[in-house]
């Protein structure tokens, strides 16, 4: 397969691993955060950490939009879905996320709520057009990667005069989250030497938005593709930057990321969405200018306006360490609930539900680290 097999080549992995090992300064320790859940998944699925020298520690970041969604927002979506006139459409990952009182979209669906899994916002428009008597609501989540499809859907709905379509908007912004993490660093925050930057978010926003973050906090950002060789090459570039005292934005994912990003997508986002003053992130608390809502001129497509939605602040199980894990302060195994009360079958927090959450990735792929001698 093109652009897939070449980027998973074991021989190249070995030579990159040697190169990284050779450039690591003896006696130094490096801590890099892979921001994006897709990178967490790649690192776990391919066992990349087995190929890195012990001096490098990878910290799992909050780039999993399912993981950072506060419980209150899921509660609101479930309440909306329970309205007999509403058809709630959602991406698959949200189905099992635990809300308050052990509820979830999947449980609400089993109890009769009209909740439908979709793969694309175009599916939602099709449902709305086909079922004009239903109030069709799209539960929109995601970083900048998934924001353009929502924007296009709203634009099309406006053009077609769809009267029964709306969006419950929970789109969040990457640079703001990076700042929030770096701002807490040093209190109980963990020392971070740089970021493996998000792949597909960057195809949308380009490389510019990271420059301010890199300059202000003096941390290198290397935008990395999702294949395991991309991740390893990016780690090599980060090690070099740290060694040379640089704090630049580098683009490793040149086959997909342009410096200006995707300008058409950016224009659609700007036309449909406005910045919220602040938004509550699971694990990061209230973060200013970190999320989007629909512009007032699109209020009829805004489910929060249309249904007068209230999103109470709901708290997690007190023993749940999702917050600390999302900030890179704790590892999954350091949470008392990990593997006992909290498993993929009975997730306590979002980190365990989404396959890209740090806890789910660790459970699924790395729960029992293999002895080095078994790796070829």
């Amino acid at each position: 397969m093109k652009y897939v097999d070449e980027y998973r080549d074991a021989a190249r992995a070995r030579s990159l691993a040697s190169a990284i090992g050779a450039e690591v300064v003896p006696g130094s320790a490096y801590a890099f955060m892979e921001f994006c859940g897709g990178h967490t998944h790649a690192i776990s699925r391919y066992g990349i950490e087995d190929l890195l020298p012990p001096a490098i520690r990878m910290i799992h970041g909050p780039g999993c939009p399912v993981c950072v969604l506060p419980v209150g927002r899921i509660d609101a979506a479930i309440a909306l879905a329970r309205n007999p006139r509403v058809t709630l459409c959602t991406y698959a990952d949200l189905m099992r996320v635990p809300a308050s009182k052990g509820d979830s979209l999947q449980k609400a669906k089993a109890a009769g709520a009209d909740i439908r899994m979709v793969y694309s916002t175009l599916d939602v428009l099709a449902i709305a057009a086909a079922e004009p008597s239903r109030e069709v609501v799209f539960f929109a989540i995601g970083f900048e990667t998934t924001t353009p499809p929502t924007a296009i859907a709203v634009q099309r709905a406006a053009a077609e005069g769809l009267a029964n379509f709306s969006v419950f908007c929970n789109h969040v912004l990457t640079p703001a989250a990076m700042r929030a993490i770096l701002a807490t660093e040093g209190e109980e925050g963990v020392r971070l030497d740089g970021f493996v930057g998000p792949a597909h978010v960057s195809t949308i926003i380009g490389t510019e938005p990271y420059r301010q973050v890199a300059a202000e906090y003096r941390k290198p950002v290397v935008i990395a593709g999702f294949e395991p060789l991309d991740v390893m090459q990016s780690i090599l570039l980060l090690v070099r930057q740290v060694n040379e005292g640089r704090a630049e934005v580098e683009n490793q994912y040149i086959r997909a990321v342009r410096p200006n990003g995707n300008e058409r997508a950016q224009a659609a986002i700007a036309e449909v969405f406005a910045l919220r003053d602040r938004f509550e992130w699971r694990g990061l608390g209230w973060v200013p200018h970190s999320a989007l809502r629909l512009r007032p001129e699109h209020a009829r497509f805004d489910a929060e306006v249309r249904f007068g939605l209230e999103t109470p602040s709901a708290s997690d199980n007190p023993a749940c360490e999702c917050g600390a894990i999302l900030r890179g302060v704790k590892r999954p195994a350091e949470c008392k609930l990990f593997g006992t009360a909290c498993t993929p079958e009975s997730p306590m927090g979002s980190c365990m539900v989404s396959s890209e959450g740090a806890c789910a990735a660790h459970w699924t792929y790395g729960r029992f680290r293999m002895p080095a001698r078994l790796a070829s």
Partner: protein
Amino acid sequence: MDLSHGAGGRAMAHLIADLFQAEFGNEYLAQGNDQAAFDVAGGRMVMTTDGFVVSPLFFPGGDIGSLAVHGTINDIAMAGARPLYLTASYILEEGLPLADLKRIAASMGRASRDAGVPVVAGDTKVVERGKADGVFIATAGIGVVPAGLRLSGDLARPGDVVLLSGPIGDHGVAIMSCREHLSFDTAVLSDSAALHGLVAAMVARAGSGLRAMRDPTRGGLAATLNEIAQQSGVGILLREAAIPVRPQVAAACELLGLDPLNVANEGRLVAIADRQAAPALLEAMRGHPLGADAVEIGEVVEDADHFVQMITGFGGGRIVDWLAGEQLPRIC
């Protein structure tokens, strides 16, 4: 299909005669009794039961009927047994087009004849519209185990090898290609097939070297190997580079963010065997059309945690866990 077809009267009698007896055509059904009578060979018998609720009813490479025949035969065959007889019980939804039922019955009849395993007894019930998803089929099967052969999921021992009969993921991807909202063009056909011929070849060649066999259906290879690891109290170590996946299946899984290890198969088997017997078993498998791509994919190891682990194609290590529930496509 209406409720009178299940009511036990003339309509039902006609349905059974015109449709089922016509398609399955064997001496047992022809007698028209509620049961089939046959002499029992001495020795060790196996019996299984299975339910089929697949949606859609018709998919690339098969349908619920052929799937029911293959799946039941395979459960028997995984014990190393020769399948003898099947039963099939139908729960039909009011409103099901009779043409669909005829198509399913014809497919089952064909699968049964091709496998040489007759459907000797059956039952038909009709329920109201909305109470069944078109057709549900429940089956039972019996078979006889060759003398001296005992296969079981709890017999895997450290040092044994793990053999796989062919590429994984075909059936699950074929099904998904039909599902609403996940449509894409793909040339993937379900691998649904009766495996008793392949099993017979393996048993004849090196049966004493076999420990356990299982077909990796729902939950895929990951679930099956985790089951065996738990049952036997061992660990399993796989080599990803050795596990065959067709390019189209791999591409579809890439697109959807699915792991082929978790995708259902309906015409493949996994065999745990004594290391010494592996070359002979592989030769026997590769000599059979359904085992042409048979390969060794790993080994059984000591492991107090009973994990299934894998050396990835990339060179690192990972756990191969079985899924909590349905595998869901990833969003980004």
